[in-house]
C-alpha cells in the first residue's frame, strides 16, 4: 500500500505545495513535478552526485532523499543559482576554463562547489578536491573544473 503526503517546501525561493507518493524521491519530484531538469538522474544510488541540490543550505544527493521527508525544507537547484539570466562567477569561470563538456555532471558540480565556497570562501586545492569527491565527471578529467573553482575565488 502506498501513502500520499502533502508537503510544503520552498524551491528556488518559491513556495510550492505538492502531493507526493511515499516512494517518490526529491530528485523525481524536482524533475517530473516541477520540470527542474537541471537536476540530473545519474546512478540513483548516491555515488555520482549529478543529482546534488542544496537542501536547507547543505548539499545532498536528491536521489537519496524521499520527497515526503522534505516538508518545510528549502531546496535550491542549479536553476536557482543564477538571477534573471545573470550567471554567477562560478558558472562563468566553469565555461571560461572549459569545465563543461557533455554537461551532465555540471549542475551537481556547481551545487557542490557553490556549497564549498559558502562554507569556505578561500579553499585550497585539496579542499576543493575533497568537496567534489562525490561528483563524478567522465569528460574533463576534473582538472579544468578545479581550475574553474580556483579562478572563481581569485578574481
Amino acid at each position: 500500500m502506498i501513502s500520499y503526503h502533502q508537503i510544503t517546501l520552498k524551491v528556488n525561493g518559491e513556495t510550492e505545495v505538492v502531493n507526493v507518493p511515499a516512494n517518490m524521491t526529491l530528485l523525481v519530484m524536482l524533475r517530473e513535478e516541477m520540470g527542474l531538469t537541471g537536476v540530473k538522474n545519474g546512478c540513483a544510488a548516491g555515488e555520482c552526485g549529478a543529482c546534488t541540490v542544496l537542501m536547507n543550505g547543505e548539499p545532498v544527493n536528491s536521489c537519496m532523499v524521499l520527497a515526503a521527508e522534505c516538508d518545510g525544507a528549502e531546496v535550491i537547484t542549479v536553476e536557482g543559482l543564477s538571477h534573471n539570466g545573470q550567471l554567477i562567477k562560478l558558472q562563468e569561470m566553469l565555461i571560461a576554463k572549459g569545465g563543461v563538456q557533455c554537461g551532465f555532471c555540471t549542475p551537481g558540480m556547481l551545487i557542490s562547489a557553490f556549497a564549498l565556497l559558502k562554507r569556505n570562501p578561500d579553499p585550497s586545492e585539496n579542499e576543493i578536491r575533497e568537496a567534489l569527491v562525490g561528483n563524478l565527471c567522465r569528460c574533463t578529467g576534473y582538472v579544468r573544473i578545479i581550475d574553474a573553482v580556483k579562478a572563481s575565488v581569485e578574481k
Partner: protein
Amino acid sequence: MLYRRQARRYNTYKRKKTMLNPHPGLPEFTYVKLASLDEACGFLVEHAGEARLISGGTDLLVRMRDKAFKPAYVVDIKGLEGTDVLAFDPSSGLKIGAAVPMNRVVAHPDVQKHYPLLAQAAKSVASYQLRNRATIVGNICNASPAGDTLGACLLLGGRLNIYGKDGERFEDLVTFFKGPGKTSLQPGEIVTSINFPLPEKGATGTYLKLGRNKLSDLAIVGVTVYGFPDKMTESGFRIKVALASVAATPLMPPVVETVLSENEITEDTIQEAANASMDACFPIDDVRGSARYRKEMVRNLTRNAITEVWGQLQSRTENGLEANR
C-alpha cells in the same frame, strides 16, 4: 526510404527503452512519521517484520531499489525526541543522536578536540553530500562489516541508548553486532543515540582504509588503531585494533592488544602484532577483493597504522616529559 530507416531506428529506440530500465523506482511503501518514541515503538511492535526505520536513508533506499528490502512501512525517526542531540559534557563524555548527520559530527569542535579518531573515521565515509544525510547510528544499525565508523565507535567504548516497549536500556557496542545486517535489537526497539565515555589521557588513533580509490569508496579492508599510555602494562602502552570488512562482524582481535602490551614495542613487535591480526581475521572472496588479498592487506595496514599511532604516542610522551621539566 529515408523515412523507413528513421522509423526503424525509432522502433529500436522504443524497444530498448522498455527493455533497459537502469533506474527502477522505489517499490511502493507507506511513509510514516510519528510524534513520539512511544508511538514509533508501538508501531514497530504492531508491524514487526514489515517496518523499517529511516534516518539518513543512504543505505536503506539503495537496498530498497535493489529489492533487497521490501518494507511495507518506512518509519522516519528524524524529529523524535533525543535523536537530534550532539553534545559533549566534560564529565560524562559525548552523546550523538540517531538523526545527527556525519558532517555535523565531523564539524563539532569538541569531537575534533577530544575524539579526532571518530571525526577521521566519519570523514572517510563516501562524499560530503552523502555525509549530510548519513548518520553514525545508522551506520551502526546497518551492521555492515564494512562500516567505516564502527571500528572507531567500538574502540572508543561506544554505548547505545536503546528505547523499547519496556523503556530505555543501554548496550555496549561490543555485544551489539551478531552478523552482517544482524544486531541484538529486539522487535520494536529503536537506537536513539550513542554515548562515548571520556577518552583516555594522551590517547591517539588512526583509521586506515583501502578502497578502489583514495577517497569515497567502500572499504575493501579497514583498520582502526587506538592507543594510550597505560602504566599497568609491560610496554607502558595499550594499543587496540579493530578490523572492518574481514569477518561477519567488525573484529577486535584481543591477541593484538596482548602482543603490544606484554612486550616492549619495537619494529619486530609491531610486525608480530600485524601478523597476529592477519591470523585473527577470516575474510571472504567477493567483488571487492579476494580473501587472500584482504588478509595480506590487513597485515600491511595494521603494521602501518600501529607504527603511525606508536609514533604519535612516543612524540607525545616526549613532549609531556619536556613540559614536566
